[in-house]
């Protein structure tokens, strides 16, 4: 049944007037997101860039259904999000592999949770482990893998249910530059296969332009969408390391950086002030 769902067209993600407030332990109210409006077309790869602490991760939490907005609407495929939406996968910034399960056990979690038999799930998992290039490591535990390999396993675990929406929260943020480039290429290749709708969060503008169809810039907290840029670099893009030298890439980079710089500076001065106090 999950496979049949996956074959359907990917849904549109719509955020309209979304505000998210948290009550802090001291009793005051903290506004993380203010009037966020963003639409990601079906099958589109959309990146959100913004300085640290601007509410990027909060946005993903709302789309995934782990959290609910204080005001406004979050819709996936035309339906309001209430609770975890089926067909949505989220890849976290940190490793979320279970240390007590082998790579095979971790990757097969998705199908097992959706009610498949263990043999079926394992067969499917072996296939996905091969696709992310981890064949031969099925029986390794996460602590026996390198950071890049753990990310691959995490990618397989996130993609195995063939999600129609893929949410990524700085998935490669903790990796070294080379590994990050390799993982980005592999992500693009895997994305081209099934073309889910992607919302990709990063603070790395180069990464955002190299991967995405659209880049949204967020303001520093309370976060809102400052500007949206269409990336008209042709697909398939090829190696992300090389596309950075294309003239069009540099043009886009300058344009978006203009919008982003202000926010980064404001975020910096804010933390610097907090430090001086």
């Amino acid at each position, binding site marked *: 049944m999950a496979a049949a769902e996956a074959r359907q067209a990917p849904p549109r993600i719509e955020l309209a007037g979304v505000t998210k407030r948290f009550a802090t332990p001291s009793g005051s109210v903290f506004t993380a997101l203010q009037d966020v409006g963003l639409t990601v077309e079906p099958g589109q790869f959309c990146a959100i860039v913004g300085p640290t602490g601007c509410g990027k991760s909060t946005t993903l939490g709302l789309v*995934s259904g*782990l959290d609910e907005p204080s005001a406004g609407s979050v819709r996936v495929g035309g339906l309001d999000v209430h609770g*975890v939406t*089926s067909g*949505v*996968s*989220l890849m*976290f910034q*940190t490793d*979320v592999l*279970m*240390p*007590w*399960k*082998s790579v095979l056990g971790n990757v097969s*979690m*998705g199908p*097992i*949770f*959706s009610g498949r038999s263990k043999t079926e799930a394992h067969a499917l998992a072996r296939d996905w482990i091969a696709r992310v290039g981890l064949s031969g490591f099925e029986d390794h*535990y996460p*602590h*026996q893998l390198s950071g890049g390999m753990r990310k691959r396993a995490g990618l397989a*675990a996130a993609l195995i*249910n063939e999600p129609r929406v893929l949410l990524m929260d700085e998935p490669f943020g903790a990796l070294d530059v080379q590994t990050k480039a390799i993982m980005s290429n592999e992500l693009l290749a895997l994305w081209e296969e099934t073309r889910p709708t992607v919302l990709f969060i990063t603070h790395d503008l180069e990464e955002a332009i190299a991967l995405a169809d659209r880049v949204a810039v967020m303001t520093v907290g309370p976060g809102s969408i400052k500007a949206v840029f269409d990336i008209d670099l042709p697909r398939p893009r090829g190696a992300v390391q090389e596309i950075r030298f294309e003239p069009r890439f540099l043009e886009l980079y300058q344009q978006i950086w203009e919008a982003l710089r202000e926010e980064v500076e404001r975020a910096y001065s804010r933390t610097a002030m907090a430090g001086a106090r």
Partner: protein
Amino acid sequence: MSRTTVIGTDITAHVLQEVQLGLAPDNEDALARRAQAARRSRKIRVNTARLATFVLFVGGWQWATTVKLLDPFFFGQPTGVVQSLIHWARNGTAYGSLWEQIWVTMHEALLGFGYGVGTGIVVGILLGQVPFLADVLGPYIKILNAIPRIVLGSIFVVWLGLGTTSKVALASVLVFFVVFFNAFQGVREVDSGLIANARILGASRWQLVRHVVLPSALTWIIASLHVAFGFSVIGAIVGEFLGAQRGLGLVIATAQNNFDPNGVFAAMLIIGAIALTAEGLISALEHRLLAWRPKSTSTANSN
């Protein structure tokens, strides 16, 4: 410099010296062999020292009681302890064969252990998962825990009689609290990222417990089992002390009433052997269930 003395005194320094000399590949074998020899000699030294400690203690005891430095009437004697054991094994105790006494006590301890661990895990996870329940029941559990639970033994004997049930109940209660607090804490410590991830992947509440919460809390739970087994034996023995018709606790109580320290020590020896065996079994279980954990770097110290 004092270099020569260092090499002379410590074999590891010797090995280090080899490394510093710059080894050709064919010397690696020699180095490995030397390291192995160093490990073996250390093991031999440790075991020898252990044996010496035993001989010193038991021999000293025997000697002191023989020359009447200690009164054997109060302190017993190693030879007397062994004689008591042989006597019990051959002729049985006052309440039937020795094996029967051991079996009765073990039976009570194991049942108590099983019930206590089972309820401890279930209640611990339930309260860890349902904060409302934890807030409501928290103070009561603290109150119950504050009561010296040994006194419950008297109540259980009154309620449940002199048979095994009252001992099993006391052992269960002792075990329950140890396991419960660990399971509860273990559930609280589960990585919230793992929970969020499993929820996104579509885990139901039960699947969440089964695949994420329980395995994560298992480290805590298993750590508590070592202590818990000790408590289950205490529960059984104390229960028998307070009133029983069979069991090692009763054997000890009788020996005490007869001013027979050798009998008390002999029974203690048996209990110690049982506890050590159980400890070994629990360690093996721990090894098996927690095989996923990275090997600690200080394995050199565990012989």
